[in-house]
C-alpha cells in the first residue's frame, strides 16, 4: 500500500497551494482521481487523515472526484469511455483503445480555504 506516501505528497501540495492563496485555514481539498493512477480511493481517504495530523490541514476533508477512463476511439473519431479496465476497448464500437485521454489523473483541483 503506497497511499500513505501519496497522502503525504497530497498534503504537501495542498499546503503549498494554500500558502500561495494566503489561506489562514483549509477546510477541504478536492482531488481528481483516475483509475489508472494506481491509487485506491478508500485507502487514500483513510491515509489522508493520518497524513494531515499535525499539519495545517488537520481536520480538513478530502473530496475525491472520479475521473473515469476516456479514450480517443480512432473508428468513432470521438472521445469514448471503455468497456472496463479488463476490456480496454471503445464502449461504443469495441475497437481496442490505445489513446488514453483521461483516467491517469491524480491532481488537486480545488481548495476550500479561509482567508
Amino acid at each position, binding site marked *: *500500500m*503506497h497511499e500513505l*506516501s*501519496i497522502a503525504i*505528497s*497530497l498534503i*504537501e*501540495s495542498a499546503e503549498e*497551494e494554500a500558502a500561495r*492563496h494566503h*489561506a489562514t485555514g483549509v*477546510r*477541504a481539498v478536492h*482531488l481528481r482521481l483516475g*483509475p*489508472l*493512477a*494506481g*491509487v485506491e480511493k478508500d485507502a487514500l481517504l483513510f491515509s489522508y487523515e493520518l497524513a494531515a495530523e499535525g499539519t495545517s490541514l488537520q481536520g480538513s476533508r478530502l473530496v475525491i472526484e472520479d475521473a473515469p477512463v476516456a479514450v480517443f476511439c480512432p473508428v468513432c473519431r470521438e472521445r469514448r469511455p471503455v468497456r472496463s*479496465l*479488463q*476490456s*480496454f*476497448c471503445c464502449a461504443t464500437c469495441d475497437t*481496442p*483503445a*490505445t489513446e*488514453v485521454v483521461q483516467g*491517469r489523473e*491524480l*491532481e*488537486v*483541483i*480545488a*481548495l*476550500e*480555504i*479561509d*482567508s
Partner: protein
Amino acid sequence: MSEPRLVEVRRNVLRQNDVLARELRERFRAAGVYTVSLVSSPGSGKTAFLEKTLSRMGQRHRVAALVGDLATENDAARLRRSLAPVAQITTGTVCHLDASMVRGALEGWRLDELDFLFIENVGNLVCPSSYDLGEELRLVLLSVTEGEDKPLKYPTIFHTADVAVITKIDLAAAVEFDWDAALANIQAVRPQMPVLRVSAKTGEGMDEWQGFLEARAPVSSAPSGGAVKP
C-alpha cells in the same frame, strides 16, 4: 466566521516526483544511457532475468543496474555475479521506488560511461505504477507459474508499462500455461502491448530480448567511442 472560499488549482500530486523523473530522463539521454525499469510481483524471476541480461549484454555494452528491495542486499549480490556495477536501494517499508531514490543511488556515478542502465523495482504490481523513475522503457514481468489472469487483476501496472515479458517459459508445459489466454488477457487490458517470452534458465528468448532492446536504444546504431567491444 466568514464563509470559506473555493479556489481552483491544478496540480499533480506527484509533481515533485515527476519533475525529478524528468530531470533524470534528461540526464540519461544527455549521457547516452538507455534506461529500462522492471516491475513485477515478487518471485516472477526479475532478478534471474536481469542477471542473465547483464551478463549477456555486458559482453557488448557497458551495463549497470540499480535494484530496489525492502530489506536485503541479496538481489544486488546475485546481480554482481554478472560483474556489472550494481547498487542496491533498500527501501525499508516503502513498497516502490521513486525518482528521488534513483537519483540518490546514482550519486557519484559516471552515467556517460554506460550504455544501458536497468532499474529493478520492488516486487509489487500495485504501488510502482504511480511513480515515474525517468526510465525510457518499463517492463512488466509475469511468470508462467503465476497464471494467465495476472493482467486482468492488475490492469493499471500494465498501463504504465511499455512491454510485457513472460518469464520462466521453460516451465510453461509443466504448469499447463495457457498461452492463448495469457496473450489475450494482456491485449484485453493493454491493446497492442508488445510481448516477449523468455527463460533465464535455458536462455530461450534472450536473443530476441537483446535484439529488441538494441533496436530501441540509440547506442546500438552508433556506439560511443569508449564502448567496450571485443
